[in-house]
């Protein structure tokens, strides 16, 4: 089965090779590798933005109070602030960083993702505005069934 799967995918590899390599935007995993190995939210934010001073408003973060399945917790993030980037962290897993969005021309800060949390904890969102200020929102939730499997 594994082999068959591989063969069926190899046809697509040719197609992928044609994809332009001119994605000019920022790959935070390459430019800020330390962010992804940090074990605390504070540390991770500092490594990403070089500061831990943020304004506690302007960002809307929605997640359930109790997540039945920690393997797929729905998280919605939105804001009207002109934004450069948005980062998502949590404090339940071995490392803190979940995702960093880069906002491009025409992009709207209105994201929904599903994330994993091993146990109950707090999700922290940091928004970097175009004028370089940091805004934040947090949400503490209970995770009924921890989800780092899969």
């Amino acid at each position, binding site marked *: 089965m594994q082999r068959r799967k591989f063969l069926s995918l190899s046809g697509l590899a040719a197609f*992928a090779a044609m994809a332009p390599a001119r*994605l000019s*935007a920022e790959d935070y995993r390459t430019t800020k590798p330390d962010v992804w190995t940090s074990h605390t939210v504070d540390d991770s934010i500092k490594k990403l933005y070089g500061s831990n001073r943020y304004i506690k408003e302007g960002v809307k973060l929605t997640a359930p109070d109790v997540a039945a399945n920690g393997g797929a917790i729905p998280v919605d993030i939105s804001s009207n602030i002109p934004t450069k980037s948005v980062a998502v962290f949590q404090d339940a897993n071995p490392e803190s960083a979940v995702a960093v969005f880069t906002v*491009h021309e025409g992009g709207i800060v209105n994201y929904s993702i599903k994330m994993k949390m091993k146990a109950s904890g707090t999700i922290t969102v940091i928004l970097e505005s175009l004028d370089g200020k940091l805004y934040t929102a947090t949400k503490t939730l209970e995770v009924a069934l921890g989800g780092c499997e899969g």
Partner: protein
Amino acid sequence: MNPIDKQGNHMKIKAKLKGDIVKVKALVKHDMLTYDTAKKKGLKANFITRLTATVNGKIVFEVSTSQFLSKNPIFKFQFRGAGKGDKIEMTWIDLLGNTKSGKGKIK
């Protein structure tokens, strides 16, 4: 049943124009295997590390990701500056360097 499995695709993209805003929902097929789980199973950790969406050659969505997105992650996002019939293309790359693309049409 999972639609991406059914069709053998690795990505499902829905894009809809409402007013001047394009709303996109993308379903990506990937195990998103964390370091912890991989260790337990004796496998190599592997997860999507970056995903981008382009329309007319311009990036409209970009995210760098860790292993803590769900298995078969979902991304919903919105942007301005595209019209009905425009094609949206999404590409991801994972930790092991695999890369896949998918296409959708703005309706």
